[in-house]
């Protein structure tokens, strides 16, 4: 679609795009339409890189619109330094479905690693939405898997930060929550225990609960296996110490 196959012709004039100006004979109406559609559906990457757009910049946009249903199919800003695109909707759906299907397991691991038990699904949903919205800016500079992990990791971190802070704030309102009946609940113990661990220990412990091997943990966290084994044995000791009487 981008940088390979020729651009499809303008639906109004039938001319094809030369990449520098409108190929549509009705330049004024095309420019107006471009401006309107630009405002109606701003492309995040473009808006970030090229805002604010003046009328001459808008006039450099080559627009292809599906006139029959009024939907924008493709919008290319013809800046030679930093070309960007709005991905074709069908292509976007295909990439999304494929990536999610391929990385579903890791999506779960990231969600469990960064959210409390009752928010796993929320985080998973957040990541999916963030990935869906970010796909418009995917420019094939890295593999789609790397792009997905980048999005997932950053979204998870943001979620964790907000969630942790919101919980701390709520606890200041309700300082003594009553969990009498849950005192012996292993999942509550996990939550309690995880809250006492530092950043990396938290992740190691969660990956251990997820039944990942040390080799897989090492690949996911970028920490040596020997280091992970030491950490894990220390965490096990701490856990034993804390929950000996339960």
């Amino acid at each position: 679609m981008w940088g390979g196959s020729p651009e499809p012709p303008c639906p109004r004039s039938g001319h094809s795009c030369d990449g520098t100006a409108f190929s549509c004979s009705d330049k004024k109406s095309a420019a107006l339409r471009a401006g309107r559609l630009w405002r109606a559906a701003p492309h995040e990457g473009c808006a970030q890189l090229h805002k604010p757009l003046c009328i001459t910049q808008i006039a450099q946009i080559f627009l292809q619109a599906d006139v029959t249903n009024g939907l924008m199919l493709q919008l290319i800003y013809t800046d030679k330094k930093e070309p960007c695109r709005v991905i074709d909707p069908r292509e976007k759906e295909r990439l999304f479905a494929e990536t999610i299907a391929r990385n579903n397991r890791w999506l779960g691991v990231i969600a469990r690693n960064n959210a409390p038990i009752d928010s796993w699904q929320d985080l998973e949903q957040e990541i999916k939405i963030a990935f869906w919205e970010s796909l418009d800016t995917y420019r094939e500079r890295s593999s789609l898997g790397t792009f997905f992990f980048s999005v997932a990791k950053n979204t998870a971190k943001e979620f964790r930060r907000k969630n942790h802070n919101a919980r701390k704030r709520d606890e200041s309102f309700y300082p003594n929550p009553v969990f009498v009946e849950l005192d012996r609940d292993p999942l509550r113990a996990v939550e309690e225990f995880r809250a006492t661990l530092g950043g990396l220990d938290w992740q190691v412990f969660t990956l251990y609960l997820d039944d990942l091997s040390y080799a897989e943990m090492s690949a996911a966290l970028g920490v040596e296996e020997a280091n992970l084994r030491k950490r894990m044995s220390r965490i096990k000791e701490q856990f034993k110490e804390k929950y000996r009487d339960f």
Partner: protein
Amino acid sequence: MELEQVKAAWQREKAMYFHEVDPKAILADTKQKAMKRHRDFNRQQITQILCGLFCLGMLAAEYRREGPLLANAGLTVMLLGLALMLGGSVILKYRLRVSHPWLPEKEFVAEEREKIAARIALLRRNVKWFLIPALLGFVAWQAGLAHSAKMVIALVVVATLACAGIFWFYRWKLRKDLLPILEDIDRELEYFRNSSKSRPE
């Protein structure tokens, strides 16, 4: 309680939450939720803008050209303060809406820091430059309308209480909500800086 027992409970919970789902169903669900989120955001913003404009309009209707100068000046200052507060918060919400989670971790965290810093700056700016002048404008407006001295004192008390309440809320929001996140982000950025320093050339 044994760790293995905990691990088994975790696995059971995991199996309950996560199971293979048809990617097409996930896609449809995600698209629907993303669109709903946009719709909700726009609806919220439009409601806020309309409510704000309605309140400002109601207040502006109180303006009398032939009225006392003090009252008109007070009303104008108050309207201006409130309008700037409304405008600032609406613009900031639109600005903060944009997120770039595909950026490298360090850049993303720096972007998050900018967002939190912008929210903190807005709160501080609102209190310092807009809220207090707006309430002073309110007092001047009412005093200019030549109410009795008792009435003016009561209005000053009400304005002071309102100012104190809003000020307390802003402080609480800063202390409990924004500053801890900012500190957390700063710690993370510090970690990035240290790790890049300790990395061999």
